[in-house]
């Protein structure tokens, strides 16, 4: 009896082990491409990937298997640096690609691709409850006492970094009621007032909006495309675009070190090229993203109205300057959030 129990246990354990053996796919007939992306464009990729697979099969007879991972842009970028061997990475912002470049994993000039390597764009916008009961129409409303704000954590989420820069830039440019233009002290006070209203800081933009959908908060600062995808999916809330916002530009790159290791350079580069085609760009546009392709953008202006004041990362001197100035150890955001958390 006692023995039998042990034997049984051992047997079950071995069964578990046996289940782990998996066959390797035939390398000539199929190839595996690992895509590491930030969280919001997943629905677009779900539609684009089968089209690329069909095209590649037609051209080469090879089947492309995709392995996908969707995490916060910062998380994803650091994972790749730490050894997550992604062939292609689609991130929220340039700074996260630069980190991989500086680690020596991306060695080609990814900016030589169309639109400086930016595969999609969007703007920072708000999601508010149906009927907008709190009357949130612009940046200034986020700082009102008692408004609960959701925005992800800039340490892990690219979207969160865009959010912070959008609200600060709008304040600097005189588009926040009560904050004079070019008054950095006032802009900082405004940032602090908004951060004080933040109730939850999620790891990634998608997690943040899902939390909003579960009933947390009055307003979520997020990508315009994140809200549009949610509304397409039947969610019942509203998109508010502020008068002034930042143009979010999402870069994409082949990770040289890993494609060379895997022998997947051809298919990886073909996939990247495919994402810039009109066909793929139209799919991105259907999933809430503003296309960098002027023709596609012109055809979709009804869905993507121009803003009164749309600025780019150039307002902050580019990501190479903005990252340390706002998110570095002595960065404006870093100091402000520590004041909010420390001083209440």
């Amino acid at each position, binding site marked *: 009896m006692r023995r039998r129990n042990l034997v049984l246990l051992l047997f079950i*354990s071995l069964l*578990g*082990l046996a289940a782990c053996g998996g066959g390797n796919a035939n390398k000539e007939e199929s190839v595996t491409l690992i895509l590491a992306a930030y969280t919001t464009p997943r*629905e677009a990729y779900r539609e684009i990937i089968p089209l690329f697979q069909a095209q590649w099969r037609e051209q080469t007879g090879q089947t492309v298997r995709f392995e996908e991972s969707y995490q916060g842009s910062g998380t994803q970028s650091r994972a790749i640096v730490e050894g997550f*061997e992604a062939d292609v990475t689609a991130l929220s912002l340039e700074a996260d690609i630069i980190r991989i470049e500086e680690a020596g994993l991306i060695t080609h000039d990814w900016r030589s691709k169309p639109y400086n390597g930016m595969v999609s764009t969007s703007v920072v916008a708000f999601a508010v409850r149906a009927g907008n009961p709190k009357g949130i129409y612009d940046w200034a409303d986020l700082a009102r006492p008692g408004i609960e704000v959701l925005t992800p954590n800039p340490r892990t989420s690219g979207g969160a970094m865009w959010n912070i820069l959008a609200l600060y830039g709008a304040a600097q440019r005189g588009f926040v009621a009560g904050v004079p233009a070019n008054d950095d002290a006032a802009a900082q006070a405004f940032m602090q007032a908004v951060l004080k209203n933040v109730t939850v800081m999620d790891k990634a933009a998608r997690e943040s909006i899902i939390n909003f959908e579960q009933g947390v908060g009055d307003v979520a600062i997020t990508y315009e495309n994140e809200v549009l995808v949610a509304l397409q999916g039947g969610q019942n809330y509203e998109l508010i675009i502020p008068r002034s916002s930042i143009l979010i530009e999402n870069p994409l790159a082949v990770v040289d070190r890993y494609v060379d290791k895997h022998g997947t350079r051809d298919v990886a580069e073909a996939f990247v090229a495919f994402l810039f085609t009109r066909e793929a760009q139209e799919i991105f546009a259907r999933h809430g993203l503003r296309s960098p392709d002027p023709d596609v953008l012109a055809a979709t202006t009804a869905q993507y109205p121009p803003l009164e004041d749309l600025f780019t990362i150039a307002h902050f001197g580019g990501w190479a300057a903005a990252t340390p100035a706002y998110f570095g150890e002595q960065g404006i955001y870093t100091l402000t959030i520590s004041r909010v958390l420390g001083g209440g």
Partner: protein
Amino acid sequence: MSTLAPKPTLVTRPVSWRRVWSRRLLIGLVVIYIAILILAPLVSLVWGAFRTGVGPVITALNQPDVLAAFGRTLWISGIVLIIHALGGTVVAWVLVRHRFWGQKILNGLIDMPFAVSPVVVGYMLLLLFGRNGLLSPVLTALDIRVAFAWPGMVLATLFVTLPFMIRELGPVLEAFGVQQEQAAATLGASGWQTFWYVTLPAIRWGFFYGLTLTLARALGEFGAVLVIGGGIQGGRTETATLYIYRALDERDTVGAYSAALLLGLISLILVIGSDLWRRREKAE
């Protein structure tokens, strides 16, 4: 025992009404407390999964991704279970039966997984096994991949489940004492024979209980395997919990609830099973 026989009672003076009511109130509060904490989420899970009927649940679970994720969870847990069954028993044995320098520190270290957040465990392993990690040169030379692959996930799960076996077996071994072992040794049994025929049978319920706890914890691990594994879907590192997380992100609520329900059921069976073992242990 006759049912007519008067019950022996500790309280000889008449019990006041007030006392009866305060007792009932207390029991009622405890029942409500547990119901809110455990039952309410469970009911909402079942409701969430079956809201649109049984069909969608079966469809949601019968997908290659989901089956692969559950398979991965099961075999990672299986490896962890075997290692802890052997290692945990040895560690518990050594800690209880021997005295040596540094024992207290070692004993304290074993509880560390209880205190450290699993996410931190994932990062610690990345610092060790990542591309810039301490062991990176060795791993590259041997062409072994640990981070963002199953060995890293096994290590993470091993770490978070380390204390269960040891802390379960320790007191059982202590209570069993050494007399019978010494008697066996006097009769000429080897150390191995003593362990196999004397000690192990005596501690077997504790052994099974420890394994069950280890398994239950391994099945549910999330943070550590997310960080070290990267949650690569359609690939090699998506476990059942990571699938649930992904399904929520994709607004596939039926998928998320169904997978969560299945995982919850497995855990429930384990907990009930271990409770039965507990009772048998007490009965002996």
